[in-house]
């Protein structure tokens, strides 16, 4: 066999003697993402070529990832890929094997000829993975070697996303592989400008902002798990009320359960939607405080939704504020500018407040349950 690749496996056959593992090496042909539309032949074997188009299923996949629906196909096999017709002089862009990252990157590479070196970050995006070290020096070096990158290209430049820097020590990579890590822009939308500008980023491209659109994009991710809890708690409240209340089980369960549902929805909306969206304009710097503020505003609406007595009103007010504060505090994890030291500091102050407020709220609510003629609103 001459220089034909045996399509059946990861092994390439050359002159019938030497068996060289395909450059895709770790990429099993059966695992190749749907975006692969062919291959580019190199001196060490074929490299899968990916499309720069987003198919309907790609878009659907991204949408599903955002809403946390299923986790199927959220990774891309790590290894070397190509876009267009790259040659030995083409740029190499390093990225994560989180499918959303990979898809957005390739869709930004229209009309370009580049190599994509996908690291194994276990399906986690670059910034997160860098924080853990999975997008890191060791993995990058391993992937350079596995893909035989130095045989594929004739230069020593690697373009690594700037947000990968917490995991990658550029000087270390250079020392051990002779490859020079060049940090590309923070945002994918700037990658074209960066490449066209001779691989130079403007100061603005080096900054991670947290604009409204980005905050809005995270809201569903936070909301889905929170909503589940709203339902669980409501069911528990309904059950307890049904058993302990003075009316019939069904009457009490419905009455108190619906109250709980309304109050928790208000708190979830205040802390999970309003506070993240209004983040820059809410008072204070601590997220828990901002969330308590929107929670308090939402609690003002409780009387409009729930006809309650004094005890219940106080109870649900406290619970709503506390829930909102907690949810906004949780948003620190999705924000782009909070530090571990800062979050620890605010939690030391906020968590005791939140726990106290919920506890007092529960006691008041139980008091209301036993004093009120349950089921009568």
């Amino acid at each position, binding site marked *: 066999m001459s220089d034909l690749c045996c399509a059946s496996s990861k092994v390439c056959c050359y002159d019938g003697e030497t068996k060289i593992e395909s450059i895709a090496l770790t990429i099993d042909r059966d695992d190749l993402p749907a975006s692969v539309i062919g291959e580019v032949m190199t001196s060490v074997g074929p490299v899968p070529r990916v499309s720069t188009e987003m198919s309907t299923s790609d878009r659907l996949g991204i949408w599903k990832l955002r809403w946390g629906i299923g986790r199927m196909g959220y990774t891309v096999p790590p290894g070397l890929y190509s876009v267009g017709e790259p040659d030995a002089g083409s740029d190499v862009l390093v990225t994560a094997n989180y499918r959303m990252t990979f898809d*957005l990157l390739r869709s930004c590479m229209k009309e370009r000829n580049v190599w994509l070196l996908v690291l194994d970050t276990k399906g986690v995006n670059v910034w997160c993975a860098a924080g853990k070290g999975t997008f890191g020096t060791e993995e990058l070096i391993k992937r350079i070697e596995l893909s035989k990158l130095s045989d594929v290209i004739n230069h020593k430049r690697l373009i690594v996303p700037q947000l990968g820097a*917490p995991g990658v020590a550029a000087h270390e990579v250079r020392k051990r592989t002779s490859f020079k890590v060049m940090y590309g822009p923070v945002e994918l939308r700037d990658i074209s400008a960066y490449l066209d500008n001779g691989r130079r980023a403007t100061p603005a491209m080096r900054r991670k902002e947290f604009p409204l659109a980005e905050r809005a994009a995270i809201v569903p991710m936070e909301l889905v798990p929170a909503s589940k809890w709203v339902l669980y708690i409501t069911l528990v409240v309904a059950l307890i009320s049904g058993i302990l209340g003075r009316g019939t089980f069904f009457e009490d369960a419905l009455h108190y359960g619906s109250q709980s549902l309304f109050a928790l929805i208000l708190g979830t909306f205040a802390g999970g939607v309003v506070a993240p969206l209004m983040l820059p304009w809410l008072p204070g710097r601590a997220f828990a405080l901002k969330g308590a503020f929107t929670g308090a505003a939402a609690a003002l609406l409780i009387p409009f939704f729930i006809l309650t007595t004094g005890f219940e009103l106080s109870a649900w007010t406290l619970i709503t504020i506390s829930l909102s504060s907690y949810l906004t505090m949780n948003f620190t994890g999705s924000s*782009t500018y909070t530090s571990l030291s800062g979050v620890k500091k605010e939690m030391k102050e906020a968590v005791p407040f939140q726990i106290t407020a919920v506890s007092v709220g529960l006691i008041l609510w139980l008091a209301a349950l036993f004093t009120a003629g349950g089921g009568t609103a």
Partner: protein
Amino acid sequence: MTRKIRYLKDVTTLELFEEKCTGCGMCVVVCPHGVLAMDNGLARIVDRDACMECSACSRNCPEEAITVEAGVGCAQAIINSALGRSGDACCGLEDYSSSGSDCGTTANGCECEVPAPKRKRSGCC
């Protein structure tokens, strides 16, 4: 553009040992919040309170002139570790996001590094 959102004052563990700095400028390049800047050929901390302790600067300093207690500012992760839950937390935005550009909409990824398919996902894993 909105005004820069700021987090708590005086909390960061970031330290720069100026006597070790050789002025390569890598820390200034990798910092996503403009915490550092070059001044007379050497790095300086110019916006301390903007630091999010991501450790990009210290990781990329060949002279080890910068120290920072690296971590992710994520309440859920702190709660998880306090409760002794395994499964680490990872939060933050998609590295390459884009707001309203041709590259799709902003992407956020907050994934738990737990083998698929049974993955519990909390707000920030």
